[in-house]
């Protein structure tokens, strides 16, 4: 296994249909929300936080209107203010991330992996969430957003992926996307040297669209039930896995699928490094064409001090 102490936790999410461009971005943002909340980086779910923030802003504007003409009242206490600032800073960063992730997915067609890392730096994370996006299948019904998100979370929760994890202290969260070197990625900064870390816990979520190819499906279940990691789905990992003889065939099938997916997308605009060439060339050449792009902002986790204080006082009553 390429991974040292911790072998990756894997999770296979199967969709009965196709996921179109924008929805892929939605999957990523939903995953990010999920990870941030589940791993104690934000004290409440993103939606709750946002609602709170909006309420606060409304209140603030009301107060401002009332206070007009009057003398300024004493402002809120220091630590509370700090809390508010942390909250709004985190929200701002998360929103910027969401916006740009969606933007990236609508501009760049072939982002095939997304990584969310929790930890000091993206290279030394405590936890890494690898999201392998589906490629390949082109026949089948187009899924709606609701269906996609439902399937995703049903699988995540029924598999209880994060069940045994211990609580985590607040830290930084980074988002990286993997896309071809020549793609017109904006906002995200290229990190050509980045590679997936093998430090800390690694969680792999593989998303597969598997309608119309039952043989492929069978292969996949084979793979996942055996000891091998299912990462072979993406072309990047093939070179490392394909040494295992029996897997080769099924994996190669899929890689061709992958590249044909890419070539269909770019057929209109002919670029020098056209995916057609990639499809015929061997996997090694393909490999180097994908590089990682890192989001220039990170989300700094924070705790709600007031809430935890309340919690502990509640505990006191019971004690």
């Amino acid at each position, binding site marked *: 296994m390429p991974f040292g102490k911790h072998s990756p936790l894997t999770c296979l999410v199967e969709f009965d249909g196709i996921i179109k461009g924008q929805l892929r971005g939605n999957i990523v943002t939903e995953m990010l929300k999920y990870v941030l909340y589940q791993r104690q980086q934000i004290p409440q779910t993103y939606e709750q936080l946002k609602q709170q923030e909006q309420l606060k802003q409304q209140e603030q504007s009301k107060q401002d209107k009332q206070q007009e003409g009057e003398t300024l009242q004493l402002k809120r206490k220091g630590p509370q203010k700090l809390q508010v600032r942390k909250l709004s800073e985190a929200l701002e960063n998360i929103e910027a991330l969401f916006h740009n992730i969606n933007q990236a997915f609508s501009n760049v067609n072939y982002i095939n992996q997304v990584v969310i890392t929790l930890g*000091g*730096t993206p290279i030394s994370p405590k936890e890494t969430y690898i999201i392998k996006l589906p490629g390949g299948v082109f026949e089948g019904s187009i899924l709606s957003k609701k269906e996609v998100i439902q399937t995703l979370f049903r699988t995540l929760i029924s598999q209880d992926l994060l069940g045994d994890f211990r609580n985590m202290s607040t830290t930084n969260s980074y988002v990286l996307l993997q896309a071809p070197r020549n793609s017109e990625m904006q906002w995200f*900064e290229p990190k050509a*040297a980045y590679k997936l870390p093998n430090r800390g816990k690694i969680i792999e979520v593989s998303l597969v669209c598997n309608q119309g190819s039952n043989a492929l499906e069978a292969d996949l279940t084979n793979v996942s039930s055996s000891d091998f990691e299912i990462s072979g789905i993406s072309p990047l990992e093939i070179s490392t896995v394909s040494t295992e003889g029996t897997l080769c065939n099924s994996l190669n099938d899929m890689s061709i699928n992958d590249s044909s997916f890419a070539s269909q997308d770019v057929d209109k605009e002919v670029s020098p490094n056209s995916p057609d060439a990639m499809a015929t060339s061997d996997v090694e050449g393909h490999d180097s064409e994908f590089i990682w792009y890192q989001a220039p902002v990170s989300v700094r986790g924070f705790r709600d001090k007031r809430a935890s204080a309340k919690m502990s006082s509640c505990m006191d009553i019971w004690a």
Partner: protein
Amino acid sequence: MDEIGELGEMLPVPGEPRVLHVDVCQDPCSTVKAASIKEHVKRLFHKRECPLGDMKLTEFNDEFLTEHVKCIEVTDSEFEDSTQSPNLSSITVEVHVYQVHKGGPAQEDLDEEEELAAANHWLLPSSDFQGMWENLIFDSHIKRELLQYASTTLLFSDCNVDSNIITWNRVVLLHGPPGTGKTSLCKALAQKLCIRMSDRYSYGQLIEINSHSLFSKWFSESGKLVMKMFQKIQELIDDSDALVCVLIDEVESLTSARKSAMSGSEPSDAIRVVNALLTQIDQIKRYPNVLILTTSNVTGAIDLAFVDRADIKQYIGPPSPEAIFKILHSCISELMRAGIISPPQQLLDLKALKMMNFVKNELTSLSLMLRQIAIESYGLSGRTLRKLPFIAHATFLQSSKVGLEKFLSALDLAVKKQFSDRNDLEKD
């Protein structure tokens, strides 16, 4: 036989091959491969017979370079002192392409419960350390020697030199009076090494250990904390693509001489820390991609076993008048750039002054004045020198724009004040 001797003289000196290191900072948003940038930069150097001294280019005629490169720098070129300017054919140009990481230091903690960070952790090359190396001015060839040390270490590891026969410990100890730039030099060295070795290591890491956080409140736990710290470092080293630099500042607090601890003034826990550190260093030295940089003010207090492990024990003293001149020169250029000293006037450097035999005339008078100040301020530390222009402005000037001559006289006063302050301190 004589003829042969003469022939030998005519041949080019076989000495060391001359290498010109060119550091190219790639634009953070550029996705071009380093190889193609290298090609363009090499072409740039071959096309024009550009001056081969230290320089920094930020604007290029080449469109490709303008789009993808932020700056090209040549530092520590060894040709400054040689009289004849070498032509490009006799030297090899080595181009190092790098992209800086923007994020500041990340905290590394040992305990889940403990909030205190045990180490700061940078991804190199980091934007925090940009320009540090160039602005560190030392007398002898300290900087070059340190770089050469690192490259020898790598060479030996590469050639699989048996470490049972020839040992090297990957430990560098810089010592000397406070304010001479030891810590900065360590950081800058780590950054420079990562740039110079970008072909070999895809990125670098600098871990600055907080020595005091390694002492536990529980008796006998401190040694374990050191172990934990090194376990974390071990995890980083395991990635053979990364060059890991470990910086232990004020190392005497971790490796206080065990002998004095024996006398009873120190708890035995401190001895355990020293032992743990020594054994961990022995463990770590097996790996080719690690370097331990340490600094200290009080060398007498360091354990002998640690000093013995250090491959390079470099003394870094207060700067010489020449170095002081360079430091002040760079300070004044910066103030001119910022528009505080105006109108900008040219200050000659020492080399030019020497060529004019230090004769005073219109052109050289101000530069000679600066040289005089430099000679006067011998004995001040680098840190003090860097703040002198600030103090000169704060105490003696106060206006938002000053002429160079006025500023120099204020600088002179500031130097005198530093010395009188120091005397007062000693009197108390």
